[in-house]
C-alpha cells in the first residue's frame, strides 16, 4: 500500500519531465566520454572491436610522439594569436560604438552582426583566395608596400597567422554583448564622474572598462576554451598545413582517426582526446575557483 503511494503521480511527474533531457545529456556527452576513455585503453581494431587491451600504453606512446608535441605547441600558438589579433577588437568597437549617440548606431550594429552570419566555409573560401600566392591580393598589397612575395598559407612560419588573421575584422556577437554591458552601466556613476571633471577618454579607462571587466573575463575564458579545440579552420584552410605547421590538437585527433593514411587509430586518437579533455577541464576549474575567490 505504502509503495504505491510512494510512486504516486506527484513524485514521478518531475522525473517524467526531466527524463528525456537527462537521458540525452548522458547519452550524448557522458556516455561518449567514458567510452572514449575505454577506447583509449585499447589498440583499437575497427575490424574486430575493441582490439587488444593495452592499459595506458597509448598515453605513453603519444607523449613520445613528435606530432603530439607539435600539435600542442601549434594549439598554444593559435591561442596566443587569437587573443592578440581577435580578442580586443570587439571591445574597442563596442566602446567607440557606445560613444556614437545618434540614430546611426542601429545601422552600425546591424553591420557588426554580419561577421557572425558569414558561414565558416564562405570565409575560408574568401581568405584562401586572398592569401593565394599567385593571384591573391595579399601578395599584391605586400609587393606594393615593398615587402615582397610570400607563400602565406604554405609558409611554415606564416600559416598560423594567416588562419587566425581573418578574425581581425572583429564584429560578431561579441560586439553586441559588450555594447549591451556598456549601455547597462549605471547612469548615476557616469553623471557623477562628469561632474567631478572626468573627460571622455578618462571615462573609458576609469569607469567603462572596470565595469565591464566581468564580461571581458567571461569572454576571455570562452575564447580560450574554444581556441584550444580549434579544428574547422586549420582543416579547411590547410588540412594541417605545410608539414604539420598548422595541425592543432583537435585536427590531430581527426587525422589520427579518419585520415585514410593513418589507418583509423582510434585508440591513440581517443587518448589524445582524453588529454585535451583533462586540460580543458583543468582550465575551466581554475577559472571557476578564481571566480569564486574574487566574488
Amino acid at each position, binding site marked *: 500500500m505504502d509503495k504505491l503511494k510512494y510512486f504516486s503521480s506527484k513524485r514521478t511527474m518531475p522525473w517524467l519531465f526531466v527524463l528525456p533531457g537527462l537521458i540525452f545529456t548522458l547519452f550524448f556527452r557522458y556516455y561518449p566520454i567514458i567510452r572514449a576513455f575505454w577506447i583509449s585503453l585499447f589498440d583499437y581494431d575497427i575490424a574486430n572491436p575493441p582490439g587488444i587491451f593495452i592499459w595506458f600504453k597509448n598515453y605513453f606512446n603519444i607523449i613520445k610522439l613528435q606530432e603530439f608535441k607539435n600539435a600542442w605547441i601549434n594549439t598554444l600558438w593559435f591561442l596566443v594569436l587569437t587573443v592578440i589579433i581577435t580578442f580586443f577588437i570587439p571591445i574597442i568597437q563596442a566602446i567607440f560604438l557606445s560613444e556614437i549617440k545618434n540614430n546611426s548606431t542601429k545601422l552600425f550594429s546591424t553591420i557588426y552582426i554580419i561577421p557572425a552570419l558569414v558561414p565558416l*566555409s564562405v570565409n575560408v573560401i574568401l581568405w584562401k583566395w586572398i592569401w593565394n600566392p599567385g593571384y591573391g591580393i595579399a601578395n599584391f598589397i605586400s609587393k606594393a608596400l615593398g615587402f615582397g612575395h610570400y607563400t602565406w598559407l604554405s609558409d611554415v612560419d606564416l600559416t598560423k597567422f594567416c588562419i587566425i588573421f581573418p578574425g581581425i575584422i572583429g564584429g560578431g556577437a561579441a560586439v553586441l554583448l559588450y555594447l549591451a554591458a556598456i549601455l547597462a552601466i549605471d547612469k548615476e556613476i557616469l553623471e557623477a564622474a562628469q561632474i567631478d571633471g572626468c573627460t571622455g577618454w578618462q571615462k573609458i579607462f576609469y569607469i567603462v572598462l572596470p565595469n565591464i571587466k566581468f564580461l571581458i573575463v567571461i569572454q576571455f575564458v570562452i575564447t580560450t576554451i574554444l581556441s584550444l579545440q580549434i579544428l574547422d579552420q586549420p582543416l579547411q584552410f590547410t588540412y594541417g598545413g605545410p608539414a604539420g605547421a598548422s595541425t592543432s590538437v583537435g585536427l590531430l585527433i581527426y587525422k589520427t582517426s579518419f585520415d585514410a593514411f593513418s589507418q583509423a587509430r582510434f585508440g591513440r586518437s581517443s587518448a589524445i*582526446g582524453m588529454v585535451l579533455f583533462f586540460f580543458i577541464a583543468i582550465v575551466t576549474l581554475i577559472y571557476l575557483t578564481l571566480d569564486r575567490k574574487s566574488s
Partner: protein
Amino acid sequence: MKKRLNKIHVKSDMSLTVSAYIFTIISVIIILLPLVYMTSTSLKDSFQVMELKPKIIPESGKSLSIVVDFSEFRKEDRGSLLDRMIKDSVVAMYSVIYQLNREGIFEVKFYGEVDDKIVYYSRAHKMQLESELYYGIYKKMYPLRKVLLSEDRYKKTIENIGYIFDIKGIDKNYDTEKLTKNSIDKTFGEYLNIKKCIEGKYLGTTLKSNIFLNFENFKYYMDLPKIYYENLEENLSYSRVSRFGFPVFLFNTAVVLSFAVIIQIFLCSLTAYSISRLFSKKIGNVILFICLGSLMIPFVSIMVPQFIIFKEQLGLYNKFGGILVPYLYPYGFYVYLFKGFFDRLPQELFDAARIDGAPEWHNYIRMCLPLSKPIISVIAINVFLGNWNEFLWPWLITDRRPDLWTLNVALYQLSKIDTIKQNFIMGIAAITMIPVIIITILLSGQIRRSISMSGIKG
C-alpha cells in the same frame, strides 16, 4: 579655472566622438570590403579572375553574335538542314570559349541564315558553356569539331542551351550595320575556316557590351552542382543534387536548423522547468550540475565514440538522421538560461493552477510557455547563430551523400574540386550571402536584443 577645464573637456570629448566615428566607419568598411570583393570576383570570368592586377569593378561582359549562311544547303530536307545548323552552332559556340577566352565574351548568339532569311537562332551564356566544358558533357575534352560532335553529345548540349528554328523565318535579328566591324571578327573567321569548324559560310560577327551578362553568371553558379554530379563517374548518391542544384544545400541547412531550434527549445525548457519548479532545490541543483558539467566536454574528444555509435549501433551513417539526432542533446547553457527565466516567474500562478486540480502538463504548456516568449526568441536566435557555422559533424557523417550536405559542408567539398574555377566558387559563396543579408536586415533588431539579453543574464 572652471571655464578652462570645461574647454578642455569639450575638446577632449570632441576628440573622443570624432575618433569614435572614424574608427567605427573604418571598421564597418573593413567588414563590408570582403563581401564586395567576393561579389566582384564572381562577376568575372575565369580569365579575368586570374589577372595579376585585380580590378574591383569588372569589365562589362560582351555579347558576340555569329552569323553563318547555309544557303548552299537550301535544297536539303528540314531535318538534315536543322541538324547541320545545330552542329555548326555548337562548334562555333564552344570555339568562342576556347579561342576567344581572353576577350571577356560572356554571351554567344548564333544566327543561321538561308537566302538572307534568319531561320535558326541559338544563344548560350559563357558560364553555361564553361560548365559543360570543365565538368559537364565535355569534361576533359578539347572543343574541336570532331570531339564536340562525337557520340551525339552535341544533341545533349543543344537541348540544354535551346534553339529556335523555322524555315519560314524567325523573328530574331542581328545588327547588319555592325557586321564584321569589330576587332576579333577577322581572326575568329580565319580560325573557323582554317579549322573547317563549320560547314556553312561564315558571314561575320557583331560585338556589344552588356553589364547584365556578368550578373547572369549566378544562374549558372547555382546549376554547378547539378551539372557536376550528373556527369560524375563514381556512384555517389546525388539524385536530388542533379535535379535541383545548389538549392538542395540551402534546403538541408534550413531543415537542420529548424529542427535544432524547435527541439532545443522543447527539451531545454522541459528540463529547466522541472529543475526550476518541480524538484526540490537539492535535487534540482544536482540535475543542473549534470547539464552544465556536460559543457566542459569538448566535442573533439567525443567525436570518435559518437561516430562509432552512430555508424555501428544506430546505423545513421550517410543518413539525414545522422545530422539531426545529435541535436537531441539539450545544450547546457540553454537549460541554464531557461531555468533563470523560469525562476523569475511568479510562484502564485502555478500554485493557483495546481490547487484548481490542473495536471502539471497544463501548467507547463498553457501557462509557462506563453509567458516565456522573450526567452524563447533569445534561445532560438542563439541556437541559429551557434549552429549556422556547424561543419565537422555533418561533414563526418555524410561523406558519400552529396544530397545530404549542409551549406558549410557543400561549400567546402565544392571548393576542393580542382576543375571548378575560382569565379564559380566565389559565386556560390556570394550566393549564400544573400540569405544572410536578408536575415540581417529583417531580424537585426531581434538579434541585437537577444544577444544582449543572453549576455547579461549569463
